[in-house]
């Protein structure tokens, strides 16, 4: 039984990646182990924890529940792509730091991608909007309070700066 392979081309954080991958390889494994983008984490591999969330053509998606081949020709954004070209943290990243919205940081990639999408689509979220948005992202460390505070603060910072998340 030899492993069926496919060539894929995926744009990740604006950069084109090519690889030959087993057809059954998950997108999370492909990002992490083929492309070396280990910032996306895998916490359950069954679609519940949300740590593996990436932006797939701009929409949050669980990369553990997708196959790498499904990403062929698509654009993906991961935690590694959130800071500015100059290496400055995004407003959301900085707010997460300032509000102690991360401890071990394992859930952080999924929180960041999910909330980046939220703040893009809903620039003035309420506390409950934020909680609902991340209700599919589990964190065992923080109790979420710092994350929610960070998201609300980031929305304000974005408004103040007239920029994106």
């Amino acid at each position, binding site marked *: 039984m030899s492993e069926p392979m496919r060539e894929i081309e995926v744009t990740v954080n604006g950069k084109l990646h090519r690889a030959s991958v087993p057809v059954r390889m998950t997108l999370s494994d492909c990002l992490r182990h083929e492309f070396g983008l280990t910032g996306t984490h895998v916490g359950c591999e069954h679609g519940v924890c949300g740590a593996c969330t990436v932006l797939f053509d701009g929409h949050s998606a669980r990369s553990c529940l997708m196959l790498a081949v499904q990403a062929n020709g698509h654009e993906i954004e991961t935690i590694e792509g959130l800071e500015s070209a100059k290496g400055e943290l995004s407003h959301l990243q900085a707010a997460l730091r300032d509000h*102690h919205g991360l401890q071990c940081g394992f859930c952080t990639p999924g929180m960041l991608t999910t909330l980046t999408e939220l703040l893009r689509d809903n620039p003035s979220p309420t506390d409950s909007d934020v909680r609902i948005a991340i209700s599919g992202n589990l964190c065992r460390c923080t109790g979420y309070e710092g994350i929610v505070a960070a998201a609300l603060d980031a929305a304000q910072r974005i408004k103040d700066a007239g920029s994106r998340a």
Partner: protein
Amino acid sequence: MNRIVGTSVERVEDRALLRGQACFVDDISFPGLLHAAFVRSAEAHALIRTVDISAALDVPGVRAIWRMEDIAHHLSDPLLKVALPSPAFRQELHRPTLSDQEVVHVGEAIAVVIADSRYIAEDAAALVMVDYEPLPAVSDCKAALEADAPRAHSSQPHNLVAEFTMGYGDHETVFASAPHVFHEELWQHRGVAHSMECRGVVARHDRLEDIITLWSSTQTPHACKRVICDVLGLDEDKLRVVTPDVGGGFGPKLVFYPEEVILALAARELRAPVKWIEDRREHFVSTTQERDQLWDMQIAVDNDGKILGLRGLLVHDHGAYTARGVNVPYGSAAAITLPYIVPCFFLDIKLAVTNKVPVTPIRGAGQPQAVFAMERLMDRVARELKLTTDEVRRRNLVPPELIPYTTPLKTRGGMQVVLDSGDYPATQAAALEKADWAGFRARQAAARKEGRYLGIGLANYVEGTGRGPFEPVSVRIGENGRIHVASGAAAMGQSTKTMLAQVVAEQLGCDMSNITVVTGDTAAIDYGMGGFNSRQAVMAGASAHAAAKKVRAKALTVAAHMLDVGEQALEVEGRHVRLKGNDERKVGLGEIARALAGLPGYYVPGGLDPGLEATERVIINDMTYANGTAVVEVEVDPETGLVQLTHVTFAHDCGNVLNPQIVEGQIIGGMAHGIGNALYEWMGFDENAQPVTTTLAEYLLVSATEMPMKVDIVHLTSPTPLNELGIKGVGESGVIPMTAAVAAAVDDALAPFNVKITRVPITPPDLVSLIEKAAAP
């Protein structure tokens, strides 16, 4: 006076984590990396007849498949003997490295497949055919102790793995004459730690130097190294254990696991780096768990509600093997009386072996169960004697004038339990005030008019923190002026590096960016206990403080020589020692380090020992006791059984606070875990001890929407005299009183239905059936 300690400085961990640049164990990769997958028991209890690996070996890309018989010759002992010693043991139930005779829980490892990819390894693992002869299994700890219960291990005559008693005073006499004796049977269900990162190990063997490096997401790297060296017969310079970034620990990662030794062996024998990453389903069946305990308790009180005595039976589910010791029930038993004056106490503690995943500490380590038992009893006393629940506690809390209060209890190491600091009544009062306890009955009455059911409850805890005897820290300043800190402490997400950097920075220039901290690397420091028992800020903090002070003193002495002034005139500022307030006359820390590195044929300046460095292993044998009070307000829907937390107030005293933001983060995180234990987290096993919740869709963790609508934290500060920084541990406190406080609040909300919560988690179906039962004539 402090500039860094006590402030919410930016964490040194954050930048890498926020940019996706941290390095967790599964982020480690090497050319030629092989991948391991384990074949695990599908049976809760069975004899293994055969393990047929022939089909699996045929899978292309498989490099090796090992059963016990394939590796036994490499092992000094087939069993992992890691139990903490205790005279309480009646049976020795060590885990085998791989099981080859009898499996005693679903999930124990039987074989390992090592292959070119994880996918191939898992394919092949599924083709390993294990022929089982099923045996009857026992899944309930109470049933396990009955005479006719199936034996969890067929080699043993019974299921009582250990027993001991704890107590003082003459309970027979006290209970015989007490005006009131109340009895409760209380039960707390098993939960899983569920760090968001599962366990994982990577091992690499360097052939040139014949050294194995093992990266493990462990909380105890030095202990891990010791076990592997013992089992594989390695000299200690032939193995290095490193803890990379760890995605949460919460207890189970302090335990040594078979995968760690097998990976080390595989890397050496297969001459290739090997990785194993636990998946979430494995985490449910192979990583240790905790909490099932049954408390059958009696409390004796006088007519004023003052406690006269406490006694009963604690049945503790030990799981299938001894992976740590009797420490969890010991911790439970030793915690139950602490907040209160309890004149006599007797507890009979029985540890039952069951065919379930082994039990070792999870955040809180037996203390949440004890607090649940004690606080439920206090609520019962209040109800029976028509006192308010706060009043009955006030009458019994250890008063501040008795602190330090020497209890008659001893720690598991035989040291007297002395409540060293704190003001328990003031803590409770602070919580009540912040929670507007006084105004609650009006809120409740108003809501009831609208058909809504509000309830309030409170729980006190006193927590032993800072388990000794020591945690080493070395502080060294390099010749470029950079400060290097190494500690045996292990970081697992609780900001350990920031904490150490803060303590050191306070003495050495207050520049956090000038400090590099290495934790969890056996090559960086010789000894280490690691992360558990809310101990690292206390123990490693004390050593860091002492080491930094030594280095500072040395730097000042040398600088005084170099600048030709008195030491008292100098201060460390940034990367220099300078004349106080004068940036013109200064000497760099790097220059001082260089001077102390010595020149051939010259004196070392100041007649000092060479090297601008110090290693400290401050010994603190006594634990320091933190305390707190949780007040929980809920709204319960009697139709659906839904419990909503409307307000949680948490007043606590962990002594001096090194970093307020981190302390609050620890508390709220623990609180979320406790809310899970109170309402959601249920690790199910059927009557055959088959696990029935093995995904995060079945086992419910608290998400952002289940958190309380409002959280308030109140800090009280009674510094402990036991360490110079005056700090007590805080990492587990948030979880400890939550089940008790939530249960009390639910009771209160459903008082019209006469509902009494005696077990957690309180699930909606359970609650609805309690309401129906109470309503039935």
